[in-house]
């Protein structure tokens, strides 16, 4: 018995020694502009997973929105022997500072979600061991537009040529943005162009027709919703008819709770048994976009409902979400390659790579 136990203990200790070694001795520094905001919190969580899988030791640092503090964090991390930096910069001044410092220390630098910054700083300082990982912005309108178009087509009834979304039966789907405040902007909307393009190129027997709903934009998304469904009095005193929008688009996920609360007043998108449903689409990060089910946000945690929750509950149709896991995985793989001396972009998804930029397309949730 004792011999068996002794053997088990020795084997356990040996295995522990073998598996507890990470691939780097010193911690990689992951420095955030503001770690507590929704986007950064989500990305940090995704990085936790990706770096753990790659067995990379790391530590998060939060500049709390202070660019000077962030520069100091960069300096301290390098002085402390960090083998690499992952930086979500406050601005391009911090980015340039970090690039120079990383070059001097000859350590790799990865910019996380710093759109456009890489080109700016590389124009000033040439450095080989730098990469930028971000979302592929162009994919937003393309993917979301495609999804909305497909939903519209699916809800078209071939027999009587009616569309389930066409509530007033005028043969058009009246759409409104909750956060775009000029007619010109609505007309130039890339998203709407993407939807119409997909519909026109499809083989659908009944092709939905879109029409912009007119409303008087207010300050907040919730007020815009009210304006959308109650109409407004024109500047010359002429009353306008309520627009009865049949499709709502929000390009700001932080507005979702206000939008849904405002819609509740019109018995919309609230109680599936007794209320009507207006398709509502949005974009967002993959977590934390306000509360819905908490009538009053008494508790911070109750307020931490995500866009995904609202879609799971059926109040929002779908959202284009940043693929945090894919971005984090790309960062972790590049770091692993640098630490192990491999070619930096080995095992990174080729479709995402464009020189020093790794652009990850949006995903559609819902």
């Amino acid at each position, binding site marked *: 018995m004792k011999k068996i136990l002794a053997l088990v203990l020795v084997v356990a200790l040996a295995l522990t020694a073998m*598996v507890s070694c990470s691939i780097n001795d010193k911690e990689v520094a992951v420095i955030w502009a503001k770690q507590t905001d929704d986007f950064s919190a989500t990305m940090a969580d995704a990085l936790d997973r990706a770096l753990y*899988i790659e067995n990379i030791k790391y530590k998060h640092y939060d500049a709390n929105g202070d660019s000077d503090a962030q520069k100091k964090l960069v300096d301290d991390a390098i002085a402390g022997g960090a083998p690499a930096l992952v930086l979500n910069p406050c601005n391009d001044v911090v980015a340039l500072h970090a690039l120079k410092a990383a070059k001097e220390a000859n350590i790799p630098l990865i910019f996380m979600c710093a759109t456009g910054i890489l080109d700016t700083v590389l124009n000033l300082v040439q450095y080989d061991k730098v990469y930028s990982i971000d979302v592929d912005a162009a994919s937003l309108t393309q993917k979301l537009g495609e999804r909305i178009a497909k939903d519209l087509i699916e809800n078209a009834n071939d027999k009587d040529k009616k569309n389930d979304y066409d509530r007033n039966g005028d043969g058009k789907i009246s759409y409104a943005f909750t956060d775009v405040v000029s007619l010109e902007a609505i007309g130039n909307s890339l998203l709407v162009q993407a939807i119409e393009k997909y519909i026109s190129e499809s083989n659908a027997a009944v092709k939905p027709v879109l029409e912009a709903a007119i409303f008087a934009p207010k300050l907040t998304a919730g007020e815009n919703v009210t304006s959308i469904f109650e109409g407004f009095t024109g500047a010359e005193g002429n009353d306008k008819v309520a627009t009865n929008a049949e499709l709502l688009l929000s390009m700001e996920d932080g507005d979702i709770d206000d939008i849904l609360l405002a819609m509740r007043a019109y018995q919309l998108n609230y109680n599936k048994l007794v209320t009507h449903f207006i398709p509502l689409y949005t974009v967002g990060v993959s977590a934390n976009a306000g509360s819905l089910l908490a009538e009053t946000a008494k508790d911070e945690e109750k307020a931490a409902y995500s866009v995904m929750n609202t879609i799971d509950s059926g109040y929002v149709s779908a959202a284009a979400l940043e693929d945090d896991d894919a971005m984090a995985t790309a960062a972790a793989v590049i770091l692993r390659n640098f630490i192990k001396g491999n070619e930096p972009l080995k095992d990174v998804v080729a479709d995402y790579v464009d020189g020093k930029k790794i652009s990850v397309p949006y995903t559609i949730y819902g």
Partner: protein
Amino acid sequence: MAKEIQLDENGKRKFGILDSISYAAGDFGCNMSFALKSTLIIFWTQFMKMDSILYALLLIIVQVWDAINDPLIGSIIDADKRKYKRNKFLTYIWFGSIGLLVAGALCFLPIPNAYDWAKIIIFIAGYVVWDAFYTIANVPYGSLLSLISNDTADRASLSAWRSIGSILGNMVPMVILPMIIYDQNNNIVGMNVFLAALIMGVLGFISFQFMIRTTEIRVEEDLKVSEEAPKVNILVAFKNFMLNRPAVGATLAAMGMFIGMQGAATAVTVLFQSYFKNVQVSGIIQLFSMIPIVIFTPLARKMVTKYGKKELSTVGAICSVVAGVLMLILPITPTVLGMVLYVVCQLIYSLGLGIYSTVSWALMGDAIDYNEWKTGTREEGVVYSLHSFFRKLAQGAGPSIVLVIMAALGYSEYHGGNQTFLVALNMRYLVAALYLLAAVMQFVGLALIYNLDKKTLAQMNKDLGRDENGNEAAAEAVEAAEAAPALETVSEEA
């Protein structure tokens, strides 16, 4: 031409396969109600958004009620002296099965927007009602075995088939439920749980009806379902129990099993939701891990005879300890490889558990003989009662304690099936730690405290005037096995 029914000398249908299948259907019916119990914590915290600590407290309260409910219902049944056309026990099972049609679903009413106080009332009321109907069906069901046949071989067959009913009743929901009650993002879908509970209530009802209609009562005896509490001084009884080393060892091992496995059940679900991000395969993984138990059970008898119960169960505990250690230290990352490593650890753990569970009740039988050997008195009822009490304590307290630990490790009901990675990582280590704790408790109980090795057992039997196989005790061992399924499963009530 209809097949002739063969009758025995009393004019009753001769015992055959129909009796065994019929009896198995009863346990299947019980498990149709019981199988969703492991989903309660996830449903009430993640879907109903009840505070985890509050829920842990409520769970303790209903488990205390559970301990009261069983003897209460048992004594009501025993006190009922009315004559029933069918048979008293079958009648009570019938009544219980009617209630279980909806009682199970009462525990899963999907109303997350209700006020907090309303949720508390609904949970307690739903659980109490379910518990009552379950006990009304389950308690007489267990005693029914003695009325179906007097023959030892027949009873052994019924007991074995009961295990089959139990396994099927566990396995089918175990595999299918995760696929239907969780969505693609690993969140629990409350309405689906409610509907599943209703459907399982109907399936349970059908099973019970089949059992009731095909059961042949061959033994006319006024059996009591509740144990008559012996008039003893509880402190003296407790003291004697604590002096009974085998009883303490066997009880500690059983408590370890329940604390570890039942307590770990919720953490395992969160592990699959947020760590592996694939809760829908969790049922298949759990099913897979039962393979060693199924393979080992037929070999149990031979191995016990060759090696001895203590020796065999100690090896089982060591197996589980090894698996627990491996689960803790191996790189079980949230990848396919990591899941494979987890499954391998589960297989090894289940092998150890299977070895132990085949002899666990027999260990208590020997512990009772030990008492007689050392003190000259048999305190069967008291020893079994205290053993059952500690088992229930572990069964009830385990999930609550673990839920509190989970909350301390960052588990937030508001994040549902998408806990942060660091919390998911904590759950990964918590599961391993709980399994290891359970295994260590079993090892301590069986290897260090339980002192009836093969040699000592032989001496004890000799001194008590029994042969080396303890033949005089054989009848009690069979009764003990009949009182509980031969195969120990985590869903075991008593």
